[in-house]
């Protein structure tokens, strides 16, 4: 196993954790975002 392999594995685990946190947990935490700065439609 090379250094790159380790980097990829750690990166992948972190990415998967982040994706699931962002879409499942962060979405339900606190109040839903309200329209405000940075909310202008592209």
């Amino acid at each position, binding site marked *: 196993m090379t250094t*790159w392999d380790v980097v*990829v594995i750690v990166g*992948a685990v972190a990415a998967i954790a982040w*994706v699931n946190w*962002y*879409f499942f947990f962060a979405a339900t935490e606190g109040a839903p975002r309200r329209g405000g700065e940075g909310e202008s439609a*592209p």
Partner: protein
Amino acid sequence: MNGPASVASPEKVTIPVSGMTCAACSSRVQRTLARQPGVAGASVNLMLENAVVAYDAAAVTPEQLVEAIRATGYGAELASRDQTAFQEQEALDRGRQEEYSALRLKVGVSLVLASVGMVISMPVMSAPMTGEHAGHGTGEGAAAGDPFMNWVHGAIDPWLAGAMPWLYQVDVQLLVYALLGMTVVTMGWAGRHFYTRAWKAFRHHAADMNTLVATGTGAAFVFSLAATFFPDFFLDRGVAPAVYYEAVLFIIALVLLGNMLEARATTQTSAALRKLVDLQPVVARLQRGDAEVEVPVAEVVQDDVVLVRPGERIPVDGEIVEGRSAVDEAMLTGESLPVEKGPGDAVIGGTVNRTGAFRYRVTNLGADSVLSRIVRLMRDAQGSRAPIQDLVDQVTGVFVPVAISIAIATFAVWFVVGPEGALIPAFAAAVAVLIIACPCAMGLAVPTAVMVSTGKGAEAGILIKGGEALQRARDVTTVVLDKTGTVTEGRPAVTDVVLAPGGEGTEDGRAEDRMLALVAALEASSEHPLGEAIVRHAEGRGIPRLRVERFDSVTGRGAVGEVGGVPVAVGNARLMADHAVDISAMEEVAASLGGRGRTPMFVAVDGSLAGIIAVADPIRETSRAAIERLGRMGLDVVLLTGDNRRTADAVAAEAGIQRVVAEVLPEGKLEEIRRLQEAGAVVAMVGDGINDAPALARADVGIAMGSGTDIAAEASDVVLMRGDLQGVPSAIHLSRRTFRTMRQNLFWAFVYNTAAIPVAAGVLYPFFGILLSPILASAAMALSSVSVVTNSLRLRTLRLA
């Protein structure tokens, strides 16, 4: 069934929503709306691009709901209040047409660019990998890149090298730049909305189909960009600096193509609705003073008098004031025979006048017209959700993040476990997973089936008020039929005319006609429904009306009077006894008629018994066949009536019904349905929708028998536009078939996604060397959506009769 709402009496508003592309989008808007204070329920429809919200007007305004939708990243705008259903539908159709044209242009251009890109990438793929330029994954020694492109390369490269040798003379780096340029154009113009919508969703912690397409193509693009400008970085690590531009080009082109085919097919699902909208005539011929003027329908006002000639379409709703005709109402009620109409009868805008000319007074206009109400009701029905959709939403809600996780894992596993230099296939597999995981087919599975079948029902005069009713009707085990007006015509008619023995002229019917003429003349002054039946019967036989000199109604007994100087009495035995008329000769006949559920009325002329006229509410012509059909479908049929047992039994025997519940009060009907439900039955109650409203509401499925003009039956889930019991088995049949279609759709969509993801991830590679190309993945994804819509469209061919 109409469960208790959480607010006192919620208002309802339909808000058009734009920018939703898949089930995840609609469920996101729905969740947002449901979270708003004062919202009792929200139903967001992807196909109709609208949200129907039940809300408490004291807690929230429609404007706030619109704001909430906009904050989610979608477009929303309130429809103008006076807009009729036609205008709304036309606006929706226009918008769709524009969107479709724009999409078609994008598909055309992006397909051309993708094809050119594929040709250009051939010499790029053939070029040896050096540090000077990026190449493609097929360079010597590199593991397989995109398998589809490799195959194409093997197939057309030799031929292309012969046909276009100059292309192979061009500097490879230049070709790569050309590919990059085309990709930027495709991503920035044709596929722009994938990225903007994905970004909007992302900011709200949501992911949908756009997220998958955007991440898949975005990752491929960034990778290619790095390979284009920093090839040495890859070469130094023993990895070919492959570019993936043509994959990005093809994925966007194919996903757009899928969207376009899908848009075209979903337009067809609302074809029935559009047909109804097209029924609305443009002009009406009015009588203004002595002149006839043609005016646009929009300018017609209440109480205007409209002239209609044979063959013309009736412009608006009204009531005939002069003239007679047969009117073809098939387009609204499914009734194939023209309906005879005369003064006082209602005519419906959109139906076709066949034989005669007539004048009528305008009654309902604009949003209140029957046609407009049907269109609105159908739009609401088509926009409603079937309960099975909740399951789909739950799945699609978690599907996208899970798919992204699988894609990341795929990349890591390939990178670590795969052959030397497996960066390229690792990347291809991850992109393929992202692309193939799009849950579009799942999002379309249920709504398209609801749309097609509600449209199909409406064509046959069966208005189903939504996906929920549609799904529940499939589980019905017991059909409870109200008697009067449902199994029977609901209008008494003369069934028997029997003369007293020993009378004259019995052979040629003269005596019968004379008796009828006398009785009809007398009853013409009465308002009793039985009397009306006799008058109608006499008119139907062409018997001239005689003059009445004296008329007295005797409550509970009948009527007496004098016609042409002759004393006449019509009524029951007690009335005859009051007038000392001997009825012994016909008592047996009367008893026998009574035993068959008919009401016998004795007729005395000049103080002696002339005969009996029996009146009954005859069963509808089609009732027996419909009840047989229900039996064949495995349903229990129960006759429920407030009438006496004898009449009920007689009707049941004639209609072929085994179970009879008679002599029940209106509250008793409700109780009876509750009892059946407690015994485990799923009950469909069929009634006229007015007297039976509580029972219809209590039943699992309430079916109202409309009379063509009366579609408002609020308490019901299904309205039969035509007074024909055949609509009941048809509705249940339609429901069963629709549910089957939904299940097939969902099955295929789930199977497709669950089976295709592992293949895309490369589980077959170690055993068979099979790896799914991202390009093929995008083609398969487009195909799966189209196949689901096509399966729903098959419902259009269903025979309901």
